[in-house]
């Protein structure tokens, strides 16, 4: 197997650069595989593939809409992972979905399916520390990295415990709210990154509410990089194909690479 997510992001940090993780809704349209490849070529360090769930409580209108479109067109976890297997890209992949998708398949089977589909990591936003153990153990067994979220609401003593159990990177939730593009970067994005950097050596990435290259640069001042979701999914929903999605990713990449930190 190629590099893990953690190795990839640590290497990036050592090179003095900021990381860019890009979220795409899985199985959204016929361009899915090509879009993943284009996003990879445009400079994403890790690509998150969203597996749609019927009740995505952490997601705002944009990702909900993409979710519904993918589900309506008949996408299933199995069909999406089958397509992921066809993707040719050196970029490590993670899956983002909700716990019931894993639970209904059985956590061991789901972990093994991810591993066989060349997926390196997994994010389950409705599976908090208190409930994560059965899944995380199954994922460890298959060498799938379980990426945990850390939110602005967490008291100080909770953060190191979350970081301890997280693999790949620690996902700092940038604001109080669900996914979606906002006018301005929330001050909580800087705060959560700063608090996390104090307690962990894992790469600290901040996501939720990072909608523009400028916001990505600003958020990266306190973190090792960003996760960009809704802005990219909005591009996918506009149509225009993989090239236009890739062009947006390049804007983020360039902004991060050219900024001085």
């Amino acid at each position: 197997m190629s590099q893990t997510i953690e190795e990839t992001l640590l290497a990036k940090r050592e090179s003095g650069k900021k990381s860019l993780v890009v979220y795409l809704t899985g199985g959204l349209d016929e361009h899915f595989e090509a879009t993943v490849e284009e996003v990879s070529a445009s400079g994403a360090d890790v690509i998150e593939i969203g597996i749609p769930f019927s009740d995505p409580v952490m997601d705002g209108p944009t990702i909900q809409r993409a979710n519904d479109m993918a589900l309506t067109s008949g996408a299933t976890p199995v069909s999406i992972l089958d397509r992921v297997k066809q993707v040719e890209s050196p970029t490590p992949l993670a899956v983002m979905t909700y716990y019931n998708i894993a639970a209904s398949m059985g956590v061991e089977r789901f972990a093994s399916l991810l591993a066989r589909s060349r997926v390196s990591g997994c994010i389950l936003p409705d599976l908090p520390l208190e409930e994560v153990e059965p899944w995380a153990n199954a994922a460890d067994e298959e060498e799938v990295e379980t990426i945990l979220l850390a939110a602005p609401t967490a008291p100080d003593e909770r953060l190191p415990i979350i970081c301890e159990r997280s693999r790949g990177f620690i996902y700092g939730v940038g604001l109080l709210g669900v996914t979606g593009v906002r006018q301005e970067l929330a001050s909580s994005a800087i705060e959560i990154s700063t608090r996390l950097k104090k307690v962990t050596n894992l790469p600290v990435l901040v996501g939720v509410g990072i909608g523009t290259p400028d916001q990505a640069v600003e958020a990266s001042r306190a973190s090792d990089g960003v996760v960009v979701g809704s802005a990219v999914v909005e591009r996918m929903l506009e149509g225009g194909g993989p090239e236009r999605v890739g062009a947006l990713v390049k804007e983020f990449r360039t902004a991060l690479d050219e900024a001085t930190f």
Partner: protein
Amino acid sequence: MSLGEINGLRDPDESGRFGEFGGRFVPETLIPACLDLEKSFKEAWADKEFRSRLDQLLSEYAGRPSPLTECPNLSKELGCRVLLKREDLNHTGSHKINNVLGQALLAQRMGKTRLLAETGAGQHGVATATAAALLGMECCVYMGEVDIERQELNVFRMRLLGAEVRTALSGSRTLKDAINEAMRDWVATVEESHYCLGSVMGPHPYPWMVRTFHEVLGKEAREQSEERLGTVPDLVVACVGGGSNAIGIFSGFADSSAELVGVEPSGGAAVGRGVPGVVHGSRSFLLQDEFGQVLEAESISAGLDYPGVGPEHSHLADSGRARYESVTDEEVIEAFQLLSRMEGIIPALEPAHALAWVSRERESLEGKTVLINLSGRGDKDVGQMMEVLEVDDGK
């Protein structure tokens, strides 16, 4: 059922589990709020002053205790002795007020200024708007677009009470989606908002806390039964959406010989036809497809139109202490009219499910004493039923 199997309801374990059901499956952002709520609830419940303030509101404001009513005409018709626990006579017209007054007082004690709620039939939304008006709190209620249409009277009531009603436009546009929207709001406003969940579902401590606030109705019903019958009824029957009115009345009889029956709509029979799954914060029986996507329920009753069920009911079903049956919309429409004509009591469509089951099973219930939880009154449903019945009459 053998007497050896009888036991009372237990509290959940540390992780919020009843047997293998329950838990705390919510975004990390909400975990501190859930932990805080659990702690605050335990403290409040142990605090005499809090309890007496709640008791006072329940009696002076909500009108408790609610009566136990004999149904002589219906009993004659069905061949079994039917008694009703009259939660329809509470202020705001349903059992929902018990839980809401408890949660609203608790929220205020925790320094929250805004109550957030989901509603299906609108009864929980009305109760929450009522408590918010009483306590001077802000109130926002999410309701599915389909439910806004079929329960428009309650939408107006909520607005009259000063609440903001927001339309849930996603998915099936019913209760399930109203809960999704309420949770998304809560993720964004958790610092000032208390999520006043309307049933025994959601993440720990909700299923346990909401049950505790409804135990008052079970306790009353037990005392009233002992007084009236000198014993407990043979059966205790309640409708089950999330399961709050059912768990309330079951709690009064779980340690007795009474048989406990929960009645689900056939189009939303989570216990009857579901398999364990995780949505809206807990693990419980759930209608879902082979990939774990939650299915849409389908019921004439907005309050029961939900693909899941509270985790303690899954546990009671698993352990065999309660059993769960289902009835069709047609049977419910019959029962709605039956109670109206026989006893002069118009039930809400939700408890009409419990009546419908008793009516259908009359032969096997012959000679028995049956206590039904009449969880709400039917005023909110007359508009919808007027249309249904006129179509039936061919007008």
